[in-house]
């Protein structure tokens, strides 16, 4: 027995030592050589923010979504599209909670391309709730010519942006339900214009170079509900709004999930009782737990 333990320890030790050697001794100089690759990951990680939609009972804050929508409408939408979101979605349950009438009035403020009509012409008409948010540019080429780069569509931005959590955090994330890398990243970017001399310098952007110059400034959007008219607040609100735009069924999902989880937990206990009952029958019983 002792001999066996010794050999076991010996093999394990040899394995770990060899692995450690491979990682450290020869690893470090190699890392230094390939400096270019690691440069990409040099920027700091976005700090984690508090979100109402985080965790088990996470729900969107309607007032925050409405403010965020206002920021999108007055600032972001000048360049960014939101093509997967329809006006009607603003009145959907689990969203910003606008009324049907508000959505109708809002949609009517937009001009939507339609057609061809009987004369064969494409024409513009006031928007309806079933229409999708139009873009200020007819196509990507026009946007690139006007802005120098194509601003990404914002419908999925909160899910399409993320950052590496690294070991061991990535193992904890599914347990603590951390799914807000996207909004954290967007918030960090919007607050990352910390170089006064260069409007295209961003602390959190890979390589610190961002095509979008600082989009927000204090007082740029006039909130009606008394929330602070500051960049931090705007950034937070618009990040929350973008999370909703990317994941509009979040509330329904978490609510239904809670029911399913409770149901399955009870079911598992019941099944366990049934299993124990059957396995305690005389013919299954051999004085030790057979598991």
């Amino acid at each position, binding site marked *: 027995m002792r001999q066996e333990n010794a050999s076991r320890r010996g093999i394990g030790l040899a394995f770990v030592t060899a692995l450690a050697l491979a990682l450290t001794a020869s690893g470090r100089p190699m890392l230094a050589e390939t400096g270019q690759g690691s440069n990409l990951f040099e920027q700091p990680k976005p700090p984690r923010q508090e979100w109402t939609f985080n965790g088990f009972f996470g729900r969107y804050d309607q007032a925050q979504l409405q403010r965020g929508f206002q920021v999108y409408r007055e600032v972001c939408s000048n360049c960014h599209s939101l093509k997967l979101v*329809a006006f*009607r979605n603003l009145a959907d349950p689990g969203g910003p909670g606008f009324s049907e009438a508000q959505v109708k009035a809002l949609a009517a403020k937009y001009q939507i391309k339609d057609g061809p*009509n*009987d004369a064969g012409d494409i024409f513009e008409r006031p928007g*309806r*709730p*079933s229409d999708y948010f139009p873009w200020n540019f007819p196509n990507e080429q026009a946007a690139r010519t006007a802005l120098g780069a194509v601003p990404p569509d914002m419908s999925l931005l909160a899910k399409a942006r993320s950052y590496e959590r690294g070991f061991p955090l990535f193992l904890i994330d599914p347990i603590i339900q951390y799914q807000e890398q996207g909004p954290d990243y967007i918030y960090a970017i919007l607050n990352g214009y910390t170089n006064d001399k260069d409007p295209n310098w961003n602390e959190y952007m890979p390589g610190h170079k961002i095509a979008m110059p600082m989009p927000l400034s204090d007082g740029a959007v006039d909130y009606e509900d008394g929330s602070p008219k500051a960049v931090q607040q705007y950034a937070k609100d618009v990040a929350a709004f973008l999370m909703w735009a990317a994941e509009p069924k979040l509330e329904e999902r978490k609510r239904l999930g809670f029911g399913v989880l409770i*149901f*399955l937990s*009870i*079911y598992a206990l*019941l*099944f366990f*009782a*049934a299993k124990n*009952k*059957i396995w305690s*029958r005389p*013919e*299954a019983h051999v004085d030790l737990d057979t598991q």
Partner: protein
Amino acid sequence: MAASAIEDEPTRRDFVFVATGAMGVVAAGFAAWPLIDQMNPDATTLAAALTEVDIGNIAEGQIVTVKWRGKPIFISHRTATEVEAARAVPLSELRDPASDESRVQKPEWLIVIGICTHLGCVPLKNAGPFEGGYFCPCHGSVYDASGRIRQGPAPYNLYLPPYKFENDTKLTIG
């Protein structure tokens, strides 16, 4: 073998087994619902249920077809004689009795869903024995200028969609 010793009889009385089985059935039922409900009309289909039509250019006696919810809608600009003829028919002569007045908002405009109530074909416009009427080529159903069934196998009059005259030239269906 061990199996022969175990019969279902004594277990059936046991609450734990009944409850476990019952919860399994409930779980299957709940799991089936999303699989069934996904075939119902989705949110885009429900939202795009509005069609706007400019009726200013439809001449008297002309019937045009527009699409609403993927179905043909007949918009008939009826002549005075057609209206008169439709209103002169006694209700007792009709298979699916309905007065012409009850089927229109403005006498000169008849708006019906262009689908034969027999088996879903699209009838021909301005066809059949009735002036301004409809004739279904599939099985020979005949409708009058009010879209009411007069001959043939169809059981009901052509159905009416919900619609509203926004003004004299603009019509909203849905």
